[in-house]
């Protein structure tokens, strides 16, 4: 695996997304819809509580990451491009890392859009905007290593649309708990709490990145 190949795959993803931006459009629309529907379901007063607003946002982000990653691999499968990538020396690791990098960038854009929508719709007060940004970056970083790995595991399986969330969401529990608590801490002015949860998110991202890079080649055999 070389950095060039990772860059190549990430750039290819970006080009495909520019040409046909269905990944980002569907992910952003999904996040917006879920935030709206969930806020309506629990009521605007409850939804504007820091803990509730954070949870709604990160649950929507987790589902959107699954949606975007699944769409990205569907695109590869539709034109059999995946076989060409896998045939490259080191192509399997590069595919995992490249997809993870591309998904991180995509989810960062979705987070900005979804976050702005939440702020606007729920009139949220942010006590520590800088800390909120740090937690959000860490939370976004923690999503792709897990989601890409599990989408790869379910590749070419029937009913994978239902299977991937079933596999991913229990594994994402630490990410969801840490991101929700970290975001709520940043919103309510708890500086130490926000940093602590952000650190946990970074550790989670590192552990699953290493695990993914170690075993993804076998998964793609």
């Amino acid at each position: 695996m070389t950095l060039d190949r990772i860059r190549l795959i990430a750039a290819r993803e970006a080009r495909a997304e520019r040409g046909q931006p269905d990944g980002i459009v569907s992910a952003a629309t999904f996040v917006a819809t879920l935030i709206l529907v969930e806020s309506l379901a629990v009521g605007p007063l409850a939804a504007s509580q820091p803990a509730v607003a954070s949870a709604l946002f990160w649950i929507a982000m987790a589902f959107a990451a699954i949606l975007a990653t699944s769409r990205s691999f569907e695109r590869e499968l539709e034109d059999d491009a995946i076989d060409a990538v896998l045939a490259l020396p080191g192509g399997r690791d590069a595919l995992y890392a490249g997809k993870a990098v591309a998904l991180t960038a995509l989810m960062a854009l979705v987070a900005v859009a979804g976050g702005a929508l939440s702020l606007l719709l729920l009139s949220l007060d942010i006590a520590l905007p800088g800390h909120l940004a740090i937690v959000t970056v860490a939370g976004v970083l923690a999503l792709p290593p897990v989601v890409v790995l599990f989408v790869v595991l379910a590749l070419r399986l029937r009913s994978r649309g239902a299977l991937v969330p079933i596999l991913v969401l229990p594994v994402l529990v630490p990410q969801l708990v840490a991101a929700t608590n970290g975001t709520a801490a940043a919103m309510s002015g708890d500086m130490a709490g926000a940093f602590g949860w952000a650190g946990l998110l970074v550790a989670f991202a590192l552990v699953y990145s290493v695990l993914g890079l170690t075993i993804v080649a076998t998964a793609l055999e």
Partner: protein
Amino acid sequence: MISTTANRTSALRARPFLGAASVIALFVALWMALVWSPPDAAMGNVVRILYVHVANAWLAYLAFVVVFLASVAYLWTKRPVFDAIAVASAEIGVLFTGLTLVLGSIWARPTWGVWWSWEPRVITTAVMFAMYVGYLLLRNLSEDLERRATRAAILGIVLVVDVPIVHLSVTWMNALHQLPSVLRPDLSPTLDPAMLASLIAMTIAFTFLYAYLMTARVDIEQRRQARLLAVRA
């Protein structure tokens, strides 16, 4: 390629002995748990559910660690017997994790006053249950023998991370659930000696039961593998 055919292993020949040992050990353990061991000073006879609840939880841990070891062995050797061991252990693990949750809930009602509590041990156990149900789903949705075994082995390795999280969750977070009373960091159990002996007896009985169920399920899986390999040939 899977390089070996599925053969009956010598362990399967021990099945009748394991069955007999399970029955005898369960009778002895039940007598110790229900008759011999004293009631708890605070909980009274309700404490007796501890013996099956803890033994179930132990078996769930054991089953998922075996899934992990068999998964590593499968990826290392590509021998189908390890895949058979992994699926057998995962199914037994899911069954006993489910029973742990149900028995825990029954125990929680008289002691905590609720059937279900959002506390760390309960939640992490429920998450572990969901993870391994997903593992079994992944297996069932995959038709190719080799790919299914490889994917399942990878998942079996990834999911084992939750086992220590479940065990240590009560020490990391404030919890209603009591702290570990046997597998403690200082290796000094906090239980009454008669209660501890009953719990150990029940755990041994459940371990025999696990071994018996494993041999039966591994046998079924190996027959299935042989049938699939025969169809493919």
